[in-house]
């Protein structure tokens, strides 16, 4: 049975007329790593809020349909119980920091204290999460006097320490440096392999292509596509609907038009692009093709 189950979910914020999510149907299996992509305003963050119980429990508004996680319906739950199963990293990391604590270490321990985790385990979990997010050297710093990317790492770590069954991440690497981003994707991928369920909103197609099990393309509050990364990320529907693609996909698409790409399928990763271009080049049909 799917751990996350959304059926015909439609959601409206309190002061707006049009629903921001429309008739969403989505099932996610335990241990799956699902990436959500979409243009600005598509409803990605709202989908995250819905999964995390903030819509409607915090934002109010009107939710119809079924939102179910681990067999419990959102309607029948309260936020303080819901968040034990579902952890959300907000799009703006600043919203994540509690403001109650003086150091990064204390900030990360805060949530664990609240749920009564024994001290030894707490320290181990905090240290583990700091290591995974590359902030061990910031343990004694104030969470407020950090660079943007450092703050974002603290925000991510503060969710990871809680070890929720379902991890919902809203653009968690938007301010991270490139190699840090790649590492964080790797960390998330291995957490999914070890059984955590991950739903991640991102624009970084290269790493989605490499690490996600499935891609959901969201547009105007509706699911436009839901499938295998190689299918969704190479679909001609993406560019025509304002979605970005990786440079590998876009350059191969252009090369295909020029007759410089002769493979059936467009690449989504570096390795696929290398293979495809190498075999296209050795086929040497290039001069002919260029004429057309």
């Amino acid at each position: 049975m799917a751990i996350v189950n959304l059926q015909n979910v439609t959601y409206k914020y309190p002061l707006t007329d049009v629903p921001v999510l429309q008739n969403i149907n989505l099932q996610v299996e335990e241990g799956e790593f699902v990436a959500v992509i979409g243009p600005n305003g598509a409803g990605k963050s709202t989908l995250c809020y819905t999964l995390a119980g903030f819509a409607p429990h915090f934002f109010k508004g009107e939710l119809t349909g079924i939102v179910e996680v681990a067999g419990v319906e959102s309607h029948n739950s309260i936020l303080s119980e819901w968040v034990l199963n579902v952890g959300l990293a907000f799009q703006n990391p600043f919203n994540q920091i509690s403001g109650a604590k003086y150091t990064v270490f204390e900030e990360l321990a805060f949530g664990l204290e609240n749920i009564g985790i024994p001290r030894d385990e707490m320290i181990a979990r905090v240290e583990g999460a700091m290591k995974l997010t590359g902030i061990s050297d910031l343990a004694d710093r104030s969470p407020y006097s950090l660079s943007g990317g450092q703050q974002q790492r603290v925000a991510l770590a503060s969710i990871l320490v809680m070890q929720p069954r379902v991890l919902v991440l809203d653009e968690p690497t938007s301010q991270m440096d490139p190699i840090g981003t790649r590492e964080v994707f790797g960390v998330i991928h291995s957490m999914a392999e070890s059984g955590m369920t991950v739903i991640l909103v991102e624009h970084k197609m290269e790493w989605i292509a490499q690490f996600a099990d499935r891609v959901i393309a969201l547009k105007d509050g509706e699911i436009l596509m839901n499938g295998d990364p190689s299918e969704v990320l190479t679909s001609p529907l993406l560019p025509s609907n304002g979605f970005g693609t990786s440079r590998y996909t876009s350059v191969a698409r252009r090369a295909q038009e020029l007759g410089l790409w002769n493979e059936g399928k467009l690449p989504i990763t570096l390795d696929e692009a290398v293979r495809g271009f190498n075999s296209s080049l050795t086929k040497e049909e290039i001069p002919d093709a260029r004429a057309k």
Partner: protein
Amino acid sequence: MKIEIKDLYFTYPTGVEALRGISLTVESGEQVAIVGQNGAGKTTLVKHLNGLLLPTRGQVKIGGWDTTKYPVAKLASRVGYVFQNPDEQLFSRNVGMEVAFGPKNLGFDAERVEALVNDALVLTQLADKTETNPYDLSATWRKMVALASILSMDTDILIFDEPTTGQDAVNVARIAHVIAELRKRGKTVITITHDIDFCAENFERVIAMSQGKILLDGRTNDVLGREEILASTYVDPPQLTRLGKRLGFKNTVRNQEEFLNALKK
């Protein structure tokens, strides 16, 4: 308007040494990208250009003005800075007022203010949102408002701190267009970014920072081809640069056009 930085050191009151000997000159009309790992000191460096931060040691001069000798309000007529986090910057009731605030504050006459505001709103595609409260907009659009409210000040130097963060492909293209337009107008643009593909496609000069110092500073292809040095500051070369290398291209390529040209050879 020339930017001259000599042997700049900066230590935050908490004791963090964020800049450790930066020397740098940017000529009038140059477009420069700054890349480098989280905490490298990028934001700290650019906050020195409009006097938000003052050197602990060393000197920063903007068109000959030493930033320690001119108030921030004066420097604002030369340098516009768009914050990494727009919420540190926005305060007005609606978008129109926000974008008009800067040029009004610089004392421009009503006609010039109106022209500058319109131009900024058109460039950022915000013209239909003038009556909206910035806090009713999504974070990504608030970033565009922050950008517009600096564009409207018509400064010779503009600084963008991670402008493409969280933006979709359409808005990234829009920001690239703004930068191209500013280049045509002869403005100096300094942009901090972690989006190396965006950096490669839109800038001629790149500076890579690490731990409060400059590691590399030069032509884009030269800097972005230095894979090992970049890795020491947590930066990967652009996607097409890496692809070109794997395919055995002799020269570093950084955008679609260069890649396809190299492929045809």
